[in-house]
């Protein structure tokens, strides 16, 4: 019996870079894009040799960058390669990230006929001034048009990303954004509290004092409004930042939090297989050169996780989800009684209203707990 594997494909190209983004991405010429796809296909073939006899693909996620900025035909090409070398389950969840202003009717048709059955769209905010400040080049109208195009192609499994707490973003703008998504009946929403990354233009602007972050209290209030609006409309918060209508949770995301095996292909892509975490180089040129000349994927880092690290990850990732940490599962995997080991701290956090233990022996974070999860995890593991 083959095991399930999540497949992640990284497309490092964007038409322009957003001010808050620290992902590996570049503008890229058509030639560069085609050359990269050529290498990506080679890596897929190499990786398939290694893994295809043991795994079937249960989910695929094409992320970036902006995968939809690739020329027409490129995505189809990638999928044909995947199907050629890998066994993909018939019921696989196949997600692709879309930018509202790069998606044409022709492209969406190409993606859907290639097998894509779920789209994740970066909306971020509906306020055009906020979008401008973020360095995004689309409007809410572009978003609405894209949704129509996707639905015309028979796909209803759609997710939208929104950012909470961007400088000069009002609570009103955040609430309007989430209400727009609810009105549009978007069944999955990822609401990310802004995190300022090193080396981004946003970080520079904050450093120079050109922009100011909203206060912690404001961000917490904004996020709570988003959360309660979604929950009131029938969404479930199934992870710190993810909300879904019943039946629309992302299977691919859950692979990460359940510590199931996944393979990342492409520049800067990360993988975790049998408790070994490894990642490709973040340099596109190095990536292509290595694939072409050495005939192997340019793995930059690889680390076999120790048992303690595995336990830490288990705690850190499971507590992010509404399923929480299954103490029975923890016992089965690590032969250790979680409740006994962390008794004092758990009691403290339950008392503070940050965690709960349910009747099935699951330790779950409350809404209040989700907001300070880093600290809870740090306290537990140190």
């Amino acid at each position, binding site marked *: 019996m083959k095991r399930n594997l999540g497949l*992640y494909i990284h497309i490092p190209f964007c038409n322009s870079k957003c001010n808050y983004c620290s992902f590996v991405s570049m503008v890229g010429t058509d030639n560069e894009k085609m050359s990269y796809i050529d290498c990506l296909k080679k890596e897929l073939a190499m990786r398939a040799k290694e893994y295809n006899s043991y795994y079937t693909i249960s989910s695929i996620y094409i992320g970036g960058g902006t995968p939809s900025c690739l020329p027409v035909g490129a995505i189809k090409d990638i999928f044909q390669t995947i199907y050629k070398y890998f066994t993909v389950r018939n019921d696989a969840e196949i997600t692709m990230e879309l930018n509202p202003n790069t998606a044409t009717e022709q492209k969406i048709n190409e993606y859907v006929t290639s097998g894509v059955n779920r789209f994740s769209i970066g909306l971020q905010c509906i306020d055009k001034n906020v979008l401008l400040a973020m360095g995004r080049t689309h409007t809410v109208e572009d978003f609405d048009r894209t949704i129509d195009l996707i639905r015309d192609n028979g796909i209803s499994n759609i997710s939208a990303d929104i950012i909470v707490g961007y400088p000069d973003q009002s609570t009103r703008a955040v609430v309007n954004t989430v209400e727009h998504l609810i009105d549009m009946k978007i069944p999955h929403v990822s609401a*990310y*509290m*802004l*995190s300022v990354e090193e080396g981004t233009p946003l970080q520079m602007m904050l450093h120079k004092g050109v922009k100011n972050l909203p206060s*912690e*209290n404001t*961000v*917490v209030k904004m996020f709570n409004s988003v959360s309660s609006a979604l929950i009131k409309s029938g969404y479930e918060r199934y992870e*710190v*930042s993810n909300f879904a209508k019943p039946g629309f949770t992302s299977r691919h*995301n859950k692979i*990460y*939090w359940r510590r199931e095996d*996944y393979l*990342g292909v492409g520049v*800067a*892509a*990360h*993988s*975790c297989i049998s408790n070994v*975490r490894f*990642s490709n180089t973040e340099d596109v040129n190095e990536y292509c050169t290595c694939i072409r000349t050495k005939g192997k994927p340019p793995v930059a*880092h690889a680390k076999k996780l120790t048992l303690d*690290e595995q336990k*830490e*990850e288990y705690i*850190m*990732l499971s507590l*992010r989800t509404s399923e929480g940490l299954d103490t029975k599962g923890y016992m089965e995997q690590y032969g250790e009684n979680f409740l006994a080991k962390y008794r004092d701290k758990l009691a*403290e*956090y339950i008392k*503070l209203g*940050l965690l709960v233990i349910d009747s099935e022996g699951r330790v779950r974070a409350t809404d209040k707990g*989700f*907001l*300070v*999860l*880093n*600290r*809870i*995890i*740090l*306290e537990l*593991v*140190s």
Partner: protein
Amino acid sequence: MPLNNIRNFSIIAHIDHGKSTLADRLMDVTGTVAQRDQKAQLLDSMDLERERGITIKLTPVTMKWTKDGTEYTLNLIDTPGHVDFTYEVSRSLAACEGAVLVVDASQGVEAQTLANVYLALENDLFIFPVINKIDLPSARPEEVKAEIEDIIGLDTSYVPLISAKEGTNIKEVLECIIDKIPAPKGDENAPLQALIFDSYYDNYKGAVCLVRIKNGTVKPGTKIKMLASGKVYDVVEVGIFTPKPTQKDILSAGDVGYIAASIKTVSDIRVGDTITEQGRECLPLPGYKQVHPVVYSGIFPVDGDKYNALKDALEKLKLSDASLIFTPETSTALGYGFRCGFLGLLHLDIITQRLEREFNLDLITTAPSVSYKVYKTNGELIDVSNPSLLPPREEIERIEEPILKANIFTPPEYAGAIMDLCTNRRGVFVNLVYLEEKRVKIIYELPLSEVVYDFFDKLKSVSHGYASLDYEQSGYKPSDMVKLDILLNGDICDALSLIVHRDKAYERGRGIAEKLKDVIPRQLFEIPIQAAIGNKVIARETVKALRKDVIAKCYGGDISRKRKLLEKQKEGKKKMRKLGSVELPSEAFMSILKID
């Protein structure tokens, strides 16, 4: 060497005016040290000193210079430049007949210039000025010359204009030293009389005395006696510094050098003591004082397992620093450590930094305290330098605090501001004397506890740097002292307790609570900070609970990043002290001092 051909001198200067550069240049010109052996600023041998640009450890050097066919021996004795070491400076100056005053050609006469001149004058030294840094475009030597004459009152009929950095006119300085500074007086046939002005520890020779021979001679085999300590030793080696220790057959009256006599630790050598020959004793030299610690502070390893390493490190430092004392101490908050005594806050700072750097220790230092005499109702008298050991109020009949007699020298225009400062520090006015038209001496009795923290800095600030301070302990006086406790989340943190005067307790308590609010990181729960005298809470602040600390995105690559972050945070947590459930960063213990 006839006494006429010896000159013993020191260089005094405001910080940065080029004392060390001039010293290097003098050695350079006299060929005392090959240039390739020179590190910048040779005299300041410890890294820490070089970094701070101040000299702590004194290293004398003997140079040779021939003038008009006669070879002269020039002994340069360096002096530290901080009030913590005033006594050491005074003993070093007592080993000299004169001093070269270095004044910066653009900065002119400044704070420390004057303070050091006063100290040199007290020791009856002949002082002649040189103006340094004449290579700077902003140099104004004529004006500075006028300042020297007006403010200090020194003769400026001939002042070498030099650039120590570029080596300009260095020979003139040497000629001036020979012409102007008096030759030492003494009789080499008289009984041995040598002034100890410093000591150091050598791995092979043991503790070594740095001496100025006033009378008589000393050589290997001489049976010497320390007059103050009464200890007797056989001399193994004598020598001079070139600047490396260089063995000699004999040291005679007028010489500056070292005596090694298999002395175990520097604690056996007391700066200011007189060395004589056993059986042929001289009179003791004036000015000897036994040095006592001025402030006490608890030093604890951040990692409790490092207690023994800290003990070893302190013992090693003690070998070369007689003024450092320590005894074991236990704190509920901080575990096992040592209560250490220091000459002052700079000394404390130097010791803790050396412990951290040279012995690779992470330390927590508690707020320094002076030592109080506590008279208990049962008739017992105890010394308390650790606030947490102060007996309960009902057992105390009275507390006496150490008092200083402080002499403050200043130009008269700052006298008012200085007197305000002293009053503010609970000082009692004793006298104000006009020494000269432009120099007054203000005498105050001040509680030591009010002086040790930042009095010197404040004095410099209110006098625009011109005032100088020397002080001597003048006993104890009853005082209304109380123990100020700090409670975190309802529990007393013993390591944060202080002994303060009742009149200042409220202000201090408020200040500390506010300060702690800033340094204590927010945690998952609210942390009340209270300052209390006994059961009475006098100030309260709250560290609000953390509301948001979460990674929004946690997918493929984020997981590795998050794990790295977690490792880093775990390391950070190790540096925190846990008091009950409250986490305190190490610096919190000292930060409570830095309050205005």
